[in-house]
């Protein structure tokens, strides 16, 4: 997992997104413990408070839950929720693309053409965000 401090996305959201996609890809399975705050902070080289915020965000979303004294665990709906979350992200990306297209004056037909063309492209195997 890596975060980019210079990106415009706040670091805690980046961390939350990374964990979400890890859960969606079943790197962490339901019932499994997430790395401790301390270990995550040291691994990512960020302030532990930032990691705390990311974890709080994920708890709020129901992706993970806290067990007193034992740490944070992936909830049972975690994987599906993360996968839904991934769907949300994709939706947002599409909407962003459409918005950018409209702003650039691209017509609806051209947009549909672009969409079909990219759907027909062969899937890029092995290029997931976990290959770091």
């Amino acid at each position, binding site marked *: 997992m890596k*975060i980019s*401090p*210079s*990106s*415009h*996305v*706040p*670091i*805690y959201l980046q961390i939350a997104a990374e964990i979400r996609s890890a859960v969606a890809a079943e790197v962490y399975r339901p019932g499994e413990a997430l790395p401790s*705050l*301390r270990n995550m*902070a*040291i691994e990512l*080289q*960020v*302030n*532990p*408070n*930032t990691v705390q915020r990311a974890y709080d965000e994920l708890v709020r979303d129901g992706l993970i839950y806290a067990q007193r004294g034992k740490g944070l665990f992936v909830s049972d709906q975690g994987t599906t929720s993360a996968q839904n979350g991934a769907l949300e992200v994709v939706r947002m990306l599409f909407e962003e693309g459409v918005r950018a297209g409209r*702003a650039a004056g691209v017509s609806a037909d051209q947009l549909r053409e672009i969409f079909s063309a990219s759907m027909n492209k062969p899937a890029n195997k092995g290029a997931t965000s976990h290959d770091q």
Partner: protein
Amino acid sequence: MTNSSSDGPAIELSGLTKVFGSTPAVDNLSLKIDRGSTFGLLGPNGAGKSTTIKMLMGMLSITAGEARVLGVDVAQNATIVKDSVGYVPETHHIYRWMRVGDVIGFCRALYTTWNDQTCHEMVDLFRLDLSKKVKHLSKGTLVKLALLLAVSHDPQVLVLDEPISGLDPVAREEFLDGVLRTICQRGQTVLISSHTLDDVQRLADTVGILYDGRLLMHGRLDEILSTTKRIRATLVDGRRPTSLPAGTIHDRVQGREWLVTVSGFQAEKLEHVRALEGVAHVEVADIGLEDLFKDIVKAQRATT
């Protein structure tokens, strides 16, 4: 005399000023750093970061104003402050003839709260050779030794003055590792001064931008970044509008592109820009710390 309260700010600077000759290196600086927070002091070279830090460490005389660390006035009780602060300076002048083990023994005798266990952990973490003389240490190892000395006495405040400058990427990572371990374990207040924004963004939750000895902006990093935006617009005839939205930090015209960095962003400011004559295709974008920093400095330079 020693007014240390346990819930006051960790570091409090009030009207701190330092004048060398006739130029103020630090000009009426007032700042509060809360306990447990990590504060990033940013600024270009010569902005007064090191001067400020040396004053609050009792290593440089204060021309005017006051610096309090954990409630203790540095001018009255520098030794107490030094005992509770772990300091890593920008340049290291540890006795070159001493061996690493000697340096540790020397410091151990002077600090009242020295923790042998922490010290051993750090020696192992950094793989320090206790029998090596300081003059034979590489820069990276020297910085790690300095960090070891700074954290081994369980200080409540950690002050790091440009600690990463000149370190190779591996040493840098090891250093950050050491810093993070101690933050995670003890929750100290950390003041880190740097001009590498990357490290500050990783570690700091609050930042302050220093330029020419004056504090231009300070606050929680996430708040600053979420309320400061860049408005991008096209200038139809390439003429820079005269009316700028409130809170504009800096604006720049490049050909027909107009970029306005605005603090305290609100919808009205966007409307203000949209309503201007000769302005089209107005968009808002987030701004990163680096660009914000550059804009603040450019704006300052333009006025001086």
